[in-house]
């Protein structure tokens, strides 16, 4: 029924199956939307946040999706600026994942603030000294860039592409994509960094505070670096999951392997820098404020030193060593473990830099504050996941996300389908994947 929209040369499941899947995920989405509306209309009392936990689950989710969405800018950087051509097979998907992550991040922010209708004050009355201002500006701009990067793919839809203007628009945008990618990388560098700066500048919170250079605390660079390192792992992870779900090989191994290798070296360098940072903070910065390292990791029910071990050793060094070795990269299980650990690692880092910061008491007579999210918070946090799954499903079905899919999964076109292809459009249709 929707075969006219499906890219040529690939096979998709029947429409009813597709709709059933969308419907099932849609229910989760609606649940999230309901929670979101509750938060908007009744206020943030719907959450379990409190005056000690002003930043909570959402901000973590926000930081986490931006971190893992970092795959888009870094892959784009490698593809368009450093000319790693192998990555052209995965760049579309990286952009799509990035688009989902960033739109989710913006949505979460819109729910998280107490006065959503005034959210634009962050631009209008911008305080340029605030890391959050930098985040807001760069995040919104980069989301614009991601939209620009995602748009040509949408325009490649068989029906849309029939419109000459859209066809040419997509083509022209491809032509100068390097400019957009470079701008995106610039913006990403700053907002990923600023997100790190959000915690690092809190000089009233010795657990978060870091020294740095000029106005940027070390967390600024560590966040950018970790996003660049672990973002591609998330891209690979989602690609692999998509391959499992579709039961098809969608991206060539050389692209994955290259990305995994670069990611591995990035993770290794990052985690070394993170280790040095942690060491300096634990032995110099925190003690200068009267804290020993273990004070941050004791006297409470959750945050033990395990979390530091998990973040740095298990989810840092292990994936780095797997991915930098050829043997590790060639081992499918090894790659699975490495990318999952790396993604967990970066999410754990964001968790620690948001929630543990709020939990640690600073005044001597204060106490640890632990908090449990309300169902509304959980639902609104799952909402982007459902939204992402749906957008991926739709994009995958109707857009040529994976340029090599047809080549790697050849099918015998059915006679009526072949006849349905308009002769005049057919040559152009074949051109597109090569361009992408």
């Amino acid at each position: 029924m929707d075969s006219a929209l499906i890219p040529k040369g690939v096979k998709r499941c029947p429409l009813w199956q597709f709709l059933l899947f969308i419907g099932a995920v849609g229910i989760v989405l609606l649940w999230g939307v309901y929670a979101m509306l509750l938060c908007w209309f009744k206020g943030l009392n719907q959450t379990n946040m409190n005056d000690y936990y002003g930043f909570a689950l959402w901000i973590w989710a926000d930081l986490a999706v931006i971190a893992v969405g970092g795959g888009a800018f870094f892959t784009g950087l490698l593809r368009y600026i450093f000319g790693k051509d192998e990555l052209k097979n995965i760049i579309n998907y990286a952009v799509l994942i990035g688009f989902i992550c960033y739109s989710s991040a913006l949505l979460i922010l819109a729910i998280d603030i107490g006065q959503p209708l005034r959210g634009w004050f962050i631009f209008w009355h911008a305080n340029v000294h605030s890391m959050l201002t930098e985040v807001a500006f760069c995040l919104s701009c980069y989301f614009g860039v991601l939209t620009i990067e995602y748009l040509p793919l949408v325009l490649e839809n068989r029906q849309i592409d029939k419109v000459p203007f859209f066809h040419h628009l997509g083509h022209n945008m491809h032509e100068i994509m390097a400019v957009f990618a470079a701008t995106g990388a610039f913006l990403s560098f700053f907002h990923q960094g600023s997100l790190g700066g959000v915690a690092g500048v809190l000089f009233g919170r010795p657990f978060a505070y870091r020294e740095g250079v000029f106005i940027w605390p070390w967390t600024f660079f560590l966040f950018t670096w970790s996003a660049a390192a672990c973002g591609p792992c998330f891209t690979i992870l989602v690609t692999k999951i998509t391959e499992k779900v579709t039961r098809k090989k969608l991206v060539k191994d050389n692209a994955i392997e290259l990305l995994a290798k670069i990611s591995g070296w990035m993770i290794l360098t990052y985690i070394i820098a993170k280790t040095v940072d942690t060491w300096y903070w634990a032995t110099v910065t925190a003690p200068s404020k009267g804290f020993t390292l273990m004070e941050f990791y004791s006297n409470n029910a959750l945050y033990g030193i395990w979390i530091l071990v998990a973040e740095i050793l298990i989810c840092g060094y292990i994936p780095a060593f797997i991915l930098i070795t050829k043997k590790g990269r060639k081992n499918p299980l090894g790659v699975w473990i490495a990318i999952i650990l790396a993604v967990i690692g970066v999410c754990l880092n964001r968790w620690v830099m948001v929630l543990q910061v709020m939990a640690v008491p600073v005044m001597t007579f204060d106490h640890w504050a632990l908090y449990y999210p309300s169902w509304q918070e959980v639902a609104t946090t799952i909402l982007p996941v459902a939204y992402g799954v749906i957008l991926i499903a739709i994009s995958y079905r109707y857009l040529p996300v994976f340029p090599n899919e047809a080549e790697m999964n050849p099918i015998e076109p059915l006679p009526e389908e072949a006849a349905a292809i308009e002769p005049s459009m057919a040559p152009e249709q074949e051109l597109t994947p090569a361009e992408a």
Partner: protein
Amino acid sequence: MFPFNFEWIWDMGHTVFMGGLWYALTIIGIGMTYCIIKAAIDASKKNGEHHH
């Protein structure tokens, strides 16, 4: 975000920050404008060719 917002001051912070911002926005803006105009021209050319 504009010099006419009252909290604006002509200091290093505003110059660097807003400078960077407007620089990025300009590039994106010019890039997109170029693409759209060129696409419109290309499309009209092609359309003309089709008609002839």
